[in-house]
């Protein structure tokens, strides 16, 4: 089972990204998925978590995610013990930052950085980084195919913002594939 933990702030759309990933791989790649937010009231600006669990078999585990294969950080000001906790040594942390990957301490896991804010500002004109970070995660992990994520956006995001987000997804995906 693969477990992804998303870190963001209330309002940044971390859970939407967790759901888009889940939708993409469950509906279009025949995997079993759970996607859930950190339970409780969400307040704008407060740190929030979201999770995506992916498996070939039906997932019956309802306990909290204790360790994870991937951590995605929508905002590098969140970086700290809460972000690195439970990330497996062979896992990957994808972090939205202008800094280089080696600026972030690692206990063995790989760190990949992407300036998703800049990309989002360029395409959306707004600093909304959930979709580009989803693209980056997929690029570095192979956890979902680009096509299925595009279809998920078509089904799940409001029509007005679909096209720009698909564009943004592709840009981030390619950018991260390029290893930058």
């Amino acid at each position, binding site marked *: 089972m693969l477990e992804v933990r998303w870190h963001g702030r209330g309002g940044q759309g971390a859970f939407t990204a967790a*759901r888009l990933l889940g939708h993409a791989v469950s509906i279009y790649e025949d995997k079993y998925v759970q996607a859930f937010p950190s339970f409780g009231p969400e307040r704008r600006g407060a740190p929030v978590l979201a999770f995506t669990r992916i498996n070939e078999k039906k997932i*019956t585990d309802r306990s*909290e995610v204790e360790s994870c294969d991937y951590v995605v950080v929508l905002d590098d000001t969140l970086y700290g013990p809460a972000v690195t906790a439970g990330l497996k040594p062979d896992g990957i942390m994808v972090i939205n930052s202008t800094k280089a990957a080696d600026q972030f301490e690692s206990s063995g896991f790989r760190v990949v950085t992407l300036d998703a804010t800049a990309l989002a500002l360029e395409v959306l004109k707004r600093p909304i980084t959930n979709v580009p970070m989803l693209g980056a995660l997929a690029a570095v992990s192979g956890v979902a195919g680009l096509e299925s994520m595009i279809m998920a956006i078509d089904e799940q995001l409001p029509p007005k913002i679909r096209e720009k987000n698909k564009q943004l997804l592709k840009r981030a995906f390619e950018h991260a594939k390029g290893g930058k």
Partner: protein
Amino acid sequence: MSVKQFISGDEAIAVAVKLAKPHVIAAYPITPQTIVVERLSDYVEDGSLECEYLYVESEHSAMSAVMGASAIGARTFTATSSQGLLYMCECLHYASGARFPIVMMNANRSTAVPWNIYGDQRDSLSQLESGWIQIYAEDAQEALDATIQAYRLAEDPEIMLPVMVNIDGFILTHTYEVVDIPNQADVDKFIPYQDFPNKMELENPKSTCITAGPDWNTEFRYQQHVATLKAAAKVKAIDTEFAKAFGRSYGGMVEDYRCDDAEVILVTLGSVTGTARIVVDELRSQGKKVGLLKLRCIRPFPQDEVTAILKTAKAAGVLERDISFGYEGVVFTNVNSALTGLENKPKTYNFVAGLGGRTISKSDIAGMFAKLLRQAEGKGEESVVEFVKLRCEDDGR
């Protein structure tokens, strides 16, 4: 053709209700049920569900409004949670006594105080005596399927009782999963609307929710009791028919998992069953004879099934998100009561866990099995009622 959707437990309930086409929905929002009533409002607004939607000012009125609608023969739905369920309490007893076939979803959530919005089952379990049939779902798919089954059960002319479909707050209500959505025609065929035998009619007026004094009351109550008992066989039969129509089955009143030669069995209710399945598989792979008994329906109580499955076990544990203060968990009381007739009653333990939403981990469940296995080996333990993961150094006694 059914379709797959990636939706939350709350949404699965809303989709099931849309498929069931109730005439009247009345509901009041409460976390973590709110998504259900929001989605249903959306369906009414976009025209995909034609029904009267009453945005009431409280849960007491929500249940009262669906009682009124049911009294005149309308198929109804409402949903609530926790404090809302408790606020309805008077009306819960009313609806069952009146034999109104109302279907309600309850998002299991702790009850105040301390205030807590997270999942435990103290809300619905405190209402076992309300006369409602209570069903608990393990995942979003079962939530959807159980809701459709609930209409079939509630409106059965021999039953005519309200049914509460319970799903664990957040753990199921807010978790997105792949859910197979049955097609409308199949659902229409499975739960066709038919007149309620006790409904008011303009041409043939009835007086309903009437008074029955000491001279008649017992017989009305006995009648209600008999109907509730009858529901047990119906639950099983409906599940079998559901399997034929939709290809999914849940075992009826209970589902036993790897219980055949099990020496110790853990009894569960709701979503924690899924986590426990993994632990059972792990222990089985180590050669341990462990099994799992999931209660789907707790009123009527699956006495025959519980007795039949637990009678060969050496030890049985009841894992529940509930405590009846000053005694033990209420599920435990019920299970023990069912076992009293057995010659070799297994030793039973009560694990009180997950109160106020505290996670129940695989290692917690492994610990419960370890305790049961020690008992099975003849190394009995003193504490029968155990608060799992209690974070204090002494037991305060």
